[in-house]
């Protein structure tokens, strides 16, 4: 905030000359040391599981540590050479969360000898880091993505509709299966949709904010501007509703409202959004038995116990958290497997809560909070609207997702099946989150590399948009 007080009377000396273009320090060394700590914490956790369960250090602890360390190292090198100004916290947080996720999945694998998920998760994590490196290396400037807004949205819709052709799994039609792998396209679609929203809103924000009719105290933009984006949003939510992917549809909803609000500053949009959400939720809740059960479970988590049917998954999850208490039982010493089939995916946070306790769980939630905060910070520091909206969008994806899942398994809000970013078993999710972090690295690099003159401008010029990537350095 160095806006000069231009109207000030003369006793004040003329405003000082604009400070020389200051760049943020690179802080790659900080990143490296944080990465080392993150890897060590994960190896410690892995060892702790082995010691608790079999009294011995797992034989592959060194290999696990080396693998995670190498992934972190390669990612770090990519950042160091291609995004040297990037925020130094983003990558270590991602590595720590991914590593802890592997520890928790490995730990839960011990309870289900016939169904080992950790090796596959490690493969997916490797692929995720590879894509992270790919994005950091290949995408020299995030503004490039703006050109592909419509390609993105088309790809997103196509991806989301694909699972309709495949059989449902556990009541939801959100997977594509081929060979031994299953794949959840809506995970990727959320990045593409964020890109599209950012691009469209950046291009049309003035029209959205200032044109159109005014009804009562709400300024409604013209249908021509608003139409396409609402259509696409409704379409995606409708597709997800069809596929019974409640989690992702609420995520898209939240993402759209936040980005629209940030772009236009119209509180009215929030009101309209909430209204629509209420109507939608009521409609789905009333007509979709799958959803109605979830809502009833949320309202009365112990009803099934009273009915003599045994505890529901949600009740088991609440028992897990309670069992953890302040300090937790220690890794490997809990009984969160009582939750049942989704213990490694939707309910993995319950294991964290039981075995790491309130202390560990709070640390995890704060890590996510930090990741989101760093995304927002990059958004604030950027100058171009697209970049700002993209950073906010990506950070909000993480924020909403964490809130919806963590809130769901702790009984704060109705449960919706979604994957805890980085932590939960699920290949598409891990890969997607690595791409999100790669994009955040890219925008934070731009934000911190640009001459620091305070706030970014709100309306990038055409010239700005077409500046050669990386030319600012």
């Amino acid at each position, binding site marked *: 905030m160095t806006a000069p007080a231009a109207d000030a009377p003369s006793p004040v000396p003329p405003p000082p000359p604009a400070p020389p273009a200051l760049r943020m320090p690179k802080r790659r060394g900080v990143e490296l040391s944080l990465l080392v700590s993150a890897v060590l914490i994960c190896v410690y956790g892995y060892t702790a599981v082995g010691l608790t369960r079999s009294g011995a250090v797992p034989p592959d602890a060194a290999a696990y540590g080396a693998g995670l360390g190498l992934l972190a190292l390669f990612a770090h090198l990519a950042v160091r050479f291609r995004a040297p100004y990037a925020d130094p916290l983003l990558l270590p947080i991602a590595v720590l969360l991914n590593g802890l996720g592997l520890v928790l999945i490995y730990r839960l694998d011990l309870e289900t000898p016939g169904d080992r998920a950790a090796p596959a998760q490690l493969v997916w994590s490797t692929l995720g880091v590879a894509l992270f490196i790919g994005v950091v290396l290949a995408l020299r400037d995030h503004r490039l993505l703006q050109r592909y807004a419509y390609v993105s949205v088309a790809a997103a819709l196509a991806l989301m509709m694909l699972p309709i052709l495949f059989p449902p799994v556990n009541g939801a039609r959100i997977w594509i299966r081929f060979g031994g792998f299953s794949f959840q396209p809506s995970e990727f679609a959320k990045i593409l949709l964020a890109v599209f929203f950012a691009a469209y809103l950046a291009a049309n924000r003035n029209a959205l904010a200032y044109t159109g009719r005014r009804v009562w105290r709400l300024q409604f933009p013209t249908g021509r501007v608003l139409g396409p984006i609402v259509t696409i949003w409704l379409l995606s939510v409708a597709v997800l509703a069809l596929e019974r992917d409640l989690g992702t549809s609420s995520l898209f909803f939240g993402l759209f409202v*936040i980005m629209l*609000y*940030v*772009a*236009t*500053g119209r509180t009215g949009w929030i009101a309209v959004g909430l209204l629509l959400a209420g109507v939608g939720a009521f409609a789905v809740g009333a007509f979709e038995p799958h959803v109605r059960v979830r809502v009833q479970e949320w309202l009365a988590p*112990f009803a099934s*116990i009273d009915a003599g049917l*045994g*505890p529901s998954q949600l*009740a088991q999850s*609440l*028992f897990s*958290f*309670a*069992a*953890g*208490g*302040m300090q937790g039982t220690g890794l490997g010493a809990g*009984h969160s497997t*009582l939750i049942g089939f989704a213990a490694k995916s939707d309910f993995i946070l319950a294991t964290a*809560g039981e075995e790491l*306790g*309130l202390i560990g*769980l*709070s640390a995890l*939630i*704060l890590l*996510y*909070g930090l990741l*989101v*905060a760093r995304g*927002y910070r990059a*958004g*604030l520091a950027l100058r171009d*609207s697209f970049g*700002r909206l993209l950073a*906010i969008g990506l*950070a*909000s994806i993480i*924020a*909403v997702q*964490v*809130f919806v899942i*963590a*809130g769901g398994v*702790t*009984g*704060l809000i109705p449960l919706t099946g979604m994957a805890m970013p980085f932590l939960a078993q699920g290949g598409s999710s891990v890969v997607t989150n690595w791409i999100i972090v790669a994009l955040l690295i890219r925008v934070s690099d731009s934000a911190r590399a640009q001459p620091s003159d305070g*706030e*970014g401008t*709100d309306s990038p010029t055409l010239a700005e948009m077409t500046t050669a990537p990386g030319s600012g350095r």
Partner: protein
Amino acid sequence: MTRYIRRAATLCLVMLAALLVNVVRLQLLQAGELRENPANRRPLIARYADPRGDIVVGGRTVTGSKDTRQQLRYERTYHDGPLYAPVTGYSSQLYGTTLLEHTEDETLAGTDPLLAPLPLWNDLTRSRQPGGKIVTTIRASVQRAAYQGLAGRRGAVAALEPSTGRILALVSSPSYDPALLSGNSPAVVAAWRRLNTSPDRPMLNRAIRQTYPPGSAFKIVTAAAALDARIVTDPNAATDARDPYILPGTRTRLPNRAPRCDRASLSYALRYSCNTVMAHLGVRVGLHRMRETAEKFGFNDAGLRIPARVAASTFDREMGPDQLALSSIGQFDTAATPLQMAMVAAAVANGGELVRPYLVDRVTTRGGRTVSAALPRTYQRPMNPVTAQVLQRLMIQAVEKGGGRRAAVPGVRVGGKTGTAQHGVANAGVPYAWFIAWAQQREASRPAIALAVVVEDAEANREDISGGGDAAPIAKVVIEAALKGRGG
């Protein structure tokens, strides 16, 4: 746009705060309530996560633990399960616990704070100690002799050390193997159903949970009351009890099975078990003092624990003289557990002082550190010492010359009293055979054992059932086992 970004960031902050507050609520504020929810299996899993502490008889553990690798990991095993079932009870994952497994559960499961070296710290960390050991007062040789003496017939033996109250044997027959109930498999359910529907009622602990009409064995109580009340001053003097004896206020004649009971002395009446004399004496003592004496022996005490609960033995509080007459010979509503009748014998043997019976000698940690040890405690003084001496002499005579001959052990002072209890509608049931006794080495300062044997053998010919014929030989082998290896 910056302002709106900041507001959106605030929204994220609010969501974050909501999550943290909710987690605090769940993990701290409501945690206790959730942990105690009956549908939460964690307490069960924790309970069976470690081997249970053991129950020790004569330096040898009679229980064990088997690692099943199931969710409820350790199952109880038993050595000589049927032999010790009336002592240990069972510890079942499906059906809970009984007897010592029940009363000493906190020690055996390791949750007793006494086991922890630093109780407060262990409370804080919610850690469990390895299960402690329960060292019983049971003597393996006595227990086995009693079990083999019953030889599978329906009945029970209770034996204790008169001067300390240490219970030396608790046997119920037929018995069952508590190991059948340990786990949670369908086989356990089937075993449970079978044991509960069996006409032999093998899970009934006849030694402490079943009451029987004590019959003539109760005459010791009546004699004690009569001597203490000085209704009888010379046990060898003739009494004014006539044969036939008409129950007061009725026309019912009380039968005698023994001859020459008319005006018989107390000594003769106890030796040959004259109903008429004892009924007459009971009526002369009166309801109030009869009841008082019986209660001092332990009758009507519903709170007796060893530490497992002992069924209350009964002596009616309100009776007419005719009913009192019948009660005085152990009939009418009078009912006693075998342990209660062993206590009667013990009080006589111990010079009139009844010591509270107990089954747990010591509680130790798994490592062997003693956590608590039992001390003998007086229960009551049901008769004065002189009366006790007179009764000792009379009981010895009953064994040497009377109906208890088959309990005699050469060279040992054995005092006893037979009993044959009628029961059932119009006494149609097969009578129960009783024998209560105590034994003391001639040169020993204290009696070694007091015991009660009851045989309720439905298979036997009714005429053959008598305390002297069926129960006394069992008492003899138990006495011999108790004296063997006990110095002199």
